[in-house]
């Protein structure tokens, strides 16, 4: 009997413990169930392409083609939109212009250039840019895959090898804006993202993560001698892990978390170098909000380790957490839309994600562990959410609200959707219902607006009643006072 019962209960509980649970965070920070926003669609691996992949590092999408670099085979692989191999490039010949330029410089060696452990790539209309990490240079190719320039020897004292703390220029990740300025994350550089001009001149560092010392640290440091301070652990700003530019030339950047910037591992850096990302969601965008701290062998501890970021239309962006293999999608307001991803070595999972990139509406995740590109596509729920946000962004509140209603049907835990519906009701001046929806979505700003309208309505409709009752009450009180004074035999005209 007991055996039977155990088997029966296993039948009920087993599927629950094996399926991955999709979640989101509520306003109060509870983890609540959510419908999946994206799900596995396809995979691309070395077998399906017919190439060798040993350590893929970065991928980028340009003109319906996927460009991928591998840091061990030192190849550049181009894949078309049907996920078939277009070509694999091992070395690149020099273009005639570049040969002429080199001749002017007095160089006679025109042999082909090959890469050494490339870690980053970016492609736009002006060419293909590859971080040739172990050759300490950036290689720029034209769209015929011929070298048109290489950039090395950055003119900054960080890279002055004659100094004690000078280091080699090892570019890791790159992104290029419309005016061909390169934004580079280099290894061991704490000053920020390197901005390099189109001709290879180092311009400046941008988007620095500032260091903040507590008053106690400042006080204790002021008491120490030079030698003691030298022995202390260095207070270094956190390193950036990846950069990605959007169509307005704003840079999406991810950085490692530390005590100093626990709440801003994701930044949107404007051309002035200032972080302008909107953090209007329930929590600042930083991946997982709850995590275990302290040594423990059973669960992964510490905050999310964001390694790549990719943005799509209407300011929706996704970050990749390498530590727990999760994808967090946010909208331009900083609301956490959905969390996806599944850790594992099966074809539909990934274990060591290194790069993500939007491919139209799909998301490509490059996994260094299983050497696979996993393709995620939007589910019905995710497509509705994205559609509603794009309508909202275009100012079509009615269409957006209709779609938000569909979203709530699929996932009634989805608090952001209630705000979307509430905004339409607010525009329709249906204040009372709008208040209810904003209360469900915990949007105090819009709740306050709806409440103001509601309160004004009540006062307008009952203006006579309110003023009348005020006059009656005041008059009554005065009359009572006069009456009681006379009754006591006093006079209201004189103080006695």
């Amino acid at each position, binding site marked *: 009997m007991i055996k039977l019962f155990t088997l029966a209960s296993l039948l009920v509980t087993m599927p629950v413990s094996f399926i991955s649970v999709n979640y989101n965070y509520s306003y*109060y920070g509870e983890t609540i169930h959510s419908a999946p926003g994206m799900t596995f669609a396809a995979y691309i691996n070395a077998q399906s392409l017919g190439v060798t992949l040993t350590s893929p590092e970065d991928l980028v999408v340009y003109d319906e083609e996927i460009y991928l670099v591998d840091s061990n085979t030192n190849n550049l692989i181009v894949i078309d939109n049907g996920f078939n191999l277009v070509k694999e490039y091992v070395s690149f010949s020099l273009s005639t212009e570049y040969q002429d330029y080199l001749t002017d410089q007095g160089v006679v060696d025109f042999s082909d250039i090959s890469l050494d452990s490339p870690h980053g790539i970016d492609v736009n209309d002006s060419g293909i840019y590859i971080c040739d990490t172990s050759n300490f240079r950036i290689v720029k190719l034209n769209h015929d895959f011929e070298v048109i320039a290489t950039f090395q020897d950055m003119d900054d004292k960080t890279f002055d090898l004659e100094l004690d703390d000078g280091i080699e220029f090892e570019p890791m990740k790159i992104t290029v804006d419309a005016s061909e300025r390169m934004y580079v994350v280099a290894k061991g550089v704490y000053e920020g993202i390197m901005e390099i001009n189109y001709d290879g001149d180092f311009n400046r560092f941008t988007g620095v993560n500032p260091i903040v010392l507590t008053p106690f640290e400042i006080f204790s440091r002021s008491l120490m001698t030079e030698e003691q301070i030298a022995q202390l652990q260095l207070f270094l700003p956190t390193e950036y892990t990846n950069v990605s530019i959007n169509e307005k030339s704003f840079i999406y950047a991810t950085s490692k978390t530390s005590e100093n910037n626990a709440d801003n591992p994701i930044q949107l850096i404007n051309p002035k170098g200032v972080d302008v990302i909107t953090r209007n969601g329930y929590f600042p965008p930083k991946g997982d909000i709850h995590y275990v701290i302290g040594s423990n062998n059973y669960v992964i501890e510490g905050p999310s380790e964001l390694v790549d970021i990719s943005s799509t239309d209407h300011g929706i962006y996704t970050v990749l957490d390498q530590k727990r293999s999760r994808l967090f999608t946010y909208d331009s307001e900083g609301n956490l839309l959905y969390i996806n991803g599944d850790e594992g070595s099966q074809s539909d999972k990934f274990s060591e994600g290194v790069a993500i990139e939007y491919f139209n509406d799909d998301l490509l995740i490059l996994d260094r562990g299983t050497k696979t590109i996993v393709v995620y596509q939007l589910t019905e729920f995710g497509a509705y959410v994205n559609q509603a946000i794009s309508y909202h962004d275009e100012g079509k509140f009615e269409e957006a609200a209709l779609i938000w209603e569909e979203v709530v049907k699929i996932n009634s835990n989805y608090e952001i959707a209630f705000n979307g519906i509430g905004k339409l009701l607010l525009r329709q001046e249906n204040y009372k219902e709008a208040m209810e929806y904003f209360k469900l979505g915990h949007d105090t700003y819009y*709740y306050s607006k709806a409440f103001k309208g509601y*309160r004004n309505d009540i006062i307008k409709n009952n203006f006579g009643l309110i003023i009348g009752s005020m006059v009656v009450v005041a008059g009554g009180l005065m009359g009572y006072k006069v009456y009681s004074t006379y009754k006591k035999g006093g006079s209201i005209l004189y103080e006695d």
Partner: protein
Amino acid sequence: MKTKLKTIYNDYVKFPKYILFHPFDGFEEFKRYKKGKLIVAIVFIILFAFFRVFQYQYTGFIINENNPLMLNSLQEIFSVLLLVVLFSVGNWSVTTLMEGKGSYKEILMVTGYALFPMIIMGFPSVIISNFLTLEEIAFYNLLMYMAVIATGWMLFMGILNIHQYGLFKTLIAFIATLVAMSIMMFLGLLFFDLIQQFISFIAAIYEEISLR
């Protein structure tokens, strides 16, 4: 009936108000002519504990960040009681050594009476906060700040008067009271920890012996 209502009004509103605005005269009457009543102080403390629960649950939606499902009224009540007991015991033990003239009962009464502005202003402002927009919420904050400052003022003047201290000595007494409170907290936690260890030790011995 009417006289009874009048005494209640006098005890619970008029006299505390008189103390708030005339602290020296008020506390003179409070101490010398025994116009302060213990029952009033206890009612104020209970009302304050109730106010904490009320504030948690019924502050306007715009500024209320508490999860209504997480309300633990016992926790709120006990935290108020603990604070009152800690303060009165701490202050009594310090002022006894510092030649204070106040008895424990008087200290407890001053603590209770000092909560009067918090109660008389707190309840209306929590109700008002439900009818305010985000821009007007400053009024709620103003009222609450005023209530807190008035409470601090009453507590300070009360302690100063019932112990017949000067300004400087009262400040010293307050700092010493804080120290005494933290020492009591420390001893309490230490006691709980030791008792826990002791119980688990006995449980372990029992288990060892019973398994033999």
